[in-house]
């Protein structure tokens, strides 16, 4: 009796072993039969990723810095930010991390793009009905709380080690905010404005494109911003399954106890994060400029 209370009455060991075996074998079977199909499905994604990587690598560094500085100026109209961006990128190059930074930038760009392409339509779908929302919300919760290491396993089993599985892992981790905030942004649009659009006979599509999406834009941009930040965090973990770049250096310095390398690469990631964050946030604010000003 005492034993029963001290030791948890777990299922029999044999049963658990068989259960795990069945699941593992089942998934292995699945990846053996469909792995190639799935891989070829993602092949175009690999091509794009490699293309962007190469593009960033062959672009002369002054041009890259110049383009980012221009983007920064266009989004923020702040010279302070532009100077900061130039200085930070220059330092990154100076400390020999230029190539790794480009690789990381490439994967962040592509994974953000993929997240937006998946996330915004999903968010729109979610905003259309409470039922869809009640199905998708727990899935997003699950995706965001499941330790990322855990879903690396099936991705690796299915696609092996490499850029694409890494990209998929990053997208899975980074997509929830843009979905959530697209949904929220659309649901938050003033009901009287929606009624006004309907009262003129707007179709659901006209309502979406002329009213809901434009008015949800600031919120959607907040989501994109968060997605970029999540992608940056995940890029380190994804280096465990073959994503190169700054993350891999960090991973190496953990295993080898290289403090300086770890710190430098970590700081380079922070630099990218800040640049992406400031530019996307400033752009988000720009979108809602019509809301400012005005007297009553």
């Amino acid at each position: 009796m005492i034993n029963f209370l001290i030791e948890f009455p777990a299922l029999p060991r044999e049963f658990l072993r068989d259960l795990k075996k069945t699941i593992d074998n089942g998934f292995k079977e699945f990846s053996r039969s469909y792995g190639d199909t799935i891989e070829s499905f993602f092949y175009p994604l690999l091509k794009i990723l490699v293309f962007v990587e190469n593009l960033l690598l062959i672009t002369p560094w002054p041009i890259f810095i110049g383009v980012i500085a221009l983007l920064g100026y266009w989004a923020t109209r702040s010279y302070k930010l532009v100077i900061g961006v130039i200085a930070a990128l220059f330092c990154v190059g100076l400390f020999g991390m230029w190539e790794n930074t480009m690789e990381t930038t490439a994967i962040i760009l592509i994974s953000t793009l993929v997240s937006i392409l998946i996330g915004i339509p999903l968010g729109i779908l979610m905003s259309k009905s409470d039922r869809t929302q009640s199905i998708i919300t727990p899935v997003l919760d699950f995706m965001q709380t499941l330790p990322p290491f855990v879903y690396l396993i099936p991705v690796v089993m299915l696609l092996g080690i490499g850029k694409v599985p890494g990209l998929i892992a990053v997208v899975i981790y980074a997509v929830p905010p843009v979905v959530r905030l697209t949904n929220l942004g659309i649901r938050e649009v003033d009901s009287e404005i929606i009624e006004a659009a309907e009262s003129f006979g707007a179709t659901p599509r006209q309502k979406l494109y002329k009213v809901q999406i434009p008015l949800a834009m600031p919120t959607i941009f907040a989501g994109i911003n968060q997605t970029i930040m999540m992608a940056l965090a995940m890029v380190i973990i994804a280096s465990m399954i073959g994503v190169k770049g700054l993350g891999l250096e960090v991973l190496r310095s953990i295993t080898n106890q290289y403090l300086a390398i770890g710190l430098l690469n970590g700081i380079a990631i922070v630099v990218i994060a800040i640049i992406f964050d400031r530019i996307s946030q400033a752009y988000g604010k720009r979108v809602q400029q019509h809301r400012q000003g005005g007297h009553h």
Partner: protein
Amino acid sequence: MDKIKIKIENLYKIFGRNSKNSIPLVEDGMTKDELLEKKGHVLGLNNINMNIEESIVYVVMGLSGSGKSTLIRHINRLIDPTAGKILVDEQDITQLNPQELNEFRKNKTGMVFQRFGLLPHYNILDNVTFGLDIKKIEKTISQQKALEWIKKVGLDGYEKRFPQELSGGMQQRVGLARALTNDPEILLMDEAFSALDPLIRKDMQDILIDLQQDLKKTIVFITHDLDEALKLGDKIAILKDGVLDQEGTAIDILLDPKTDYVRRFVEDVNRSRVIKAKNIMEEQSLINPELLNGQKLQVEENLVIERFIDKVISQKPSLIEVLKHGKPVGFITPDRLSSILIK
């Protein structure tokens, strides 16, 4: 009798799940409170019947929670009824499918909202062309029409501004111009002037009265303000707890309130400011012939009592003669005048 533009028949709206099941209960006389307690359903509109004639301003008045905003949203089906019919030009719009409904909204109705409902990301011109854009009318045509209306509501020069840059009164002019640019037969105005300051509200009421002189649209106007109802309404319906309490002209409501609720409403109204000479004049045959020979005061038929009462007091005429275009059309005896004012 003028043509009926909008006919509402036995309209019920009950909010809640499976609310159709509650219709028989309400028909059997269950009250709003009982329904909420027993079924969790909210009774919005209870057996509404209305005939709204073409080209009149039909005001629906009631306090908050009376169901007036719910009612107006049935006319373009922003809200679907639980039971009943809504006939516009003898067509039952409750039977329209989504495409037909959109066509109906594009061509027959325009709506003005309490908080304006303007699109903050569009400038004034694009806001006003919105209805025509939805109809996929060519830009050059829609902008030309929009500019005409922007001018008519007194906003020329503001085309490129954004709604937030305008005051409330100006924003509502945009709302009005936007609805009218579509040239709808029916104009639905949901507490359109309630959010405005009193002076601006008066301006907007005058603009609406002016425009309506030429437009002759069928206007359904919702308000909680009795003075506004009396000023604008050719006909007034008073709604209470989703029930139509009384319907009639301003004078009917003022002089002959049918329920306590309406009576309490009209108690404080300054009648001399609302009632016009023509509203209370009588035919010659009803007048004591002796009075006809005495001293007469001549007043124009559209003058409100307030504007000629001082002359009645100072001149003490034996009879007031009401003129239309300079010709007598009726008479008011001083006794009748005082009984109307004192009652």
